[in-house]
């Protein structure tokens, strides 16, 4: 009886194992026939190619593994920037779609319909080549606030030169931990005594005072380095010093966030509309201000509807960032599954690592969003 129950599952398992076995056996035989060896030893070899933009120190004398990290960090960077901006734009547009102002509502609707119905790759090309055409050459760039230069070769911004940066970072972390304690204390106090504490003011104060103390007492010191124009030849210029954001990063982040924001906007609209009218009316009738209604009644309920589909959009954005390869932004696909794959010829190894990496990234985002979803879900007692 029991055996009958597990038989279909056993059969499925056997079939899955057989299919995988067949493919891996075939790959092995084919690779052997063509004299291709298999192994991950190449990761420690010298990569001997350079990358235009890297968050960690890297050049061609580092290993392929280091090149992998460069690509991975660049992917994470553009995904994080994209997610932040997509969320901000998405929330604003989503709420604008609910506005009673006809003009605002229509503008938001047109934006959503326009950007979500054009293929993302086209949008990336558009922003990249449009930006390249529209941006000025370095020598013709007008400074913004005297120190920011947006040019065809990148966005040059002032950089901080730090002394004892680690102490500064510790002070910021300490401030954040302190804020958590203050919030917990304020909540308890309100539950016990019904009095409110100005949490926001205290938080801001902590964030300013603690890092400031690190300057005064911790020996932290920062100076600002402003980009300066430099002549490369008779007609070509660039900027030296400061921090450079390549145009590839800017246009990719722009395209990704504008595209994904349309979907997030729809999630937000659905979430807010999903809260029944009676809730708002009831909240207003017990004397809550419109701001309090939104903050205490509508949003907590809307978030429960918004979070799960928004998680999907975050995952999509992260995976879509791999289109970076089309416009020379050195992400994981371009650096590792592109150049490194070509230079080593290790297709199976590199593609498997790349797939596992994206899987890990996606699952990490999922776990975080599921945790957040659980946190705001209705706690039934």
């Amino acid at each position, binding site marked *: 009886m029991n055996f009958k129950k597990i038989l279909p599952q056993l059969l499925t398992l056997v079939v899955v194992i057989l299919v995988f076995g067949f493919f891996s056996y075939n790959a092995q035989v084919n*690779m052997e*026939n*063509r*004299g*291709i*060896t298999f192994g991950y030893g190449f990761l420690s070899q010298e990569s*001997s*190619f*350079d*990358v*235009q933009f890297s968050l960690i120190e890297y050049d*061609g004398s580092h290993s392929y593994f280091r090149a992998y990290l460069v690509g991975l960090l660049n992917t994470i960077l553009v995904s994080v920037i994209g997610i932040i901006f997509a969320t901000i734009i998405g929330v604003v547009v989503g709420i604008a779609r609910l506005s009673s102002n006809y003009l605002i509502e229509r503008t938001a609707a047109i934006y959503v319909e326009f950007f979500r119905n054009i293929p993302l790759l086209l949008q990336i090309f558009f922003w990249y*080549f449009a930006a*390249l*055409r529209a941006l000025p*050459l370095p020598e013709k760039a007008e400074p913004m606030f005297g120190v920011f230069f947006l040019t*065809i*070769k990148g966005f040059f911004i002032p950089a901080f030169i730090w002394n004892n940066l680690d102490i500064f970072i510790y002070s910021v972390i300490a401030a954040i931990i302190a804020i958590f304690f203050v919030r917990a204390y304020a909540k308890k106090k309100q539950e016990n005594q019904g009095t409110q504490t100005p949490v926001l003011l205290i938080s801001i104060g902590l964030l300013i005072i603690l890092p400031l103390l690190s300057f005064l007492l911790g020996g932290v010191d920062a100076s600002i380095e402003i980009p300066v124009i*430099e002549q*490369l*030849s*008779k*007609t*070509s210029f*660039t900027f*030296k010093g400061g921090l450079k954001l390549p*145009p*590839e990063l800017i246009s990719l982040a722009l395209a990704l966030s504008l595209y994904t924001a349309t979907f997030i906007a729809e999630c937000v609209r659905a979430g807010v509309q999903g809260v029944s009218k009676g809730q708002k009316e009831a909240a207003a009738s017990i004397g809550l201000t419109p701001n309090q209604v939104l903050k205490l009644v509508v949003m907590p309920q809307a978030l429960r509807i918004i979070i799960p589909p928004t998680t999907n959009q975050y995952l999509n954005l992260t995976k879509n960032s791999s289109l970076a*390869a*089309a*416009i*020379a932004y*050195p992400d994981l696909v*371009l650096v590792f599954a*592109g*150049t490194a*794959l*070509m*230079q*080593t*010829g*290790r*297709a199976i190894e590199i593609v498997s690592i790349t797939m596992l990496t994206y899987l890990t990234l996606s699952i990490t985002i999922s776990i975080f969003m599921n945790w957040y979803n659980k946190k705001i879900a209705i706690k039934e007692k």
Partner: protein
Amino acid sequence: MFKLVKRLTSVVAMFAVLFTFTTETMAAKKSKTLKNTQKKGFVRCGVSQGLPGFSNADAAGNWTGVDVDVCRAVAAAVLGDASKVKFTPLSAKERFTALTSNEIDILSRNTTWTLSRDADIGLTFVGVNFYDGQGFMVRKNSGISSVNDFKAGVSACTNLGTTTELNMRDFFNSKGIKYEPVTFEKADEVVAAYDAGRCDTYTTDKSGLAAQRIKLSNPDDHMVLPETISKEPLGPVVRQGDSVWEDIVRWSLNTMIEAEEYGVTSSNADMMKTSDNPAVKRLVGAEGELGAALGLDNEWSLRIIKQVGNYGESYKRNIADTGILPDRGPNELWTKGGILYVPPAR
């Protein structure tokens, strides 16, 4: 009784294994790729996504170029008709995987012959059909007239996944110049980005620079610097492990070059059958049994010369007459001061 049956089956099984083994080795001698090609009726050839002079498709989808002619020569030799080729446009990144995974049978796509490619990733280079070297293109008004004029901070556009990327690093490192590499997957995007001013220089094989220059909005505003920073012997590639097919592709290419050396052209090939020179007679199949050694008939080389032409004709038609590189440079025969030198067909 039971034991006997068991023993018998094992003997039968052993014979079966032996039998399959022998038929396998016989089939291998005949070349699996050759057999498949003859069965399909066309040669599967991997080419570039559009590089004038080497492999480029016109509006009607007709492919031309010196790389294309290598595949046409193989089709003429193996199938008797130079037009029976199926071209697959590939990016630099896709090309080797397409070959090793059996999508194509010849990769003739301005590919540089290097040790690691030849030995490490299941490929075999069969020869060189164009001797090239890496160069730099700059704007004429930039005042840069030599690679020594580059300064730290220079940004260079190039193709992803090529030897160019590695040479560029070697070059700038040896000069101690910090540079910014901007790498794209498709050549068209490299050209567009350089044209827009994203990069100060565009670097790739000099033949590629000459060919891509015509795609720029104002070709006359740009020039290729005189220096060559690397050796780039470009040639056709086949999968490792099929030596008969490898020989066929190698000698199809060699036939084109040797035909030029002996003055055999597409128009006079038939008359050359009665030549006094035994080498010429061997080349057009009027003497010897060279075709049989490759598993082909004896007219194979004659068909290549008649349908595709010799190397000189192919070069003139595709590269010189189109204005890409009118001067043959190193791609001239060894007898005329170049370095084209192939082993004799005998």
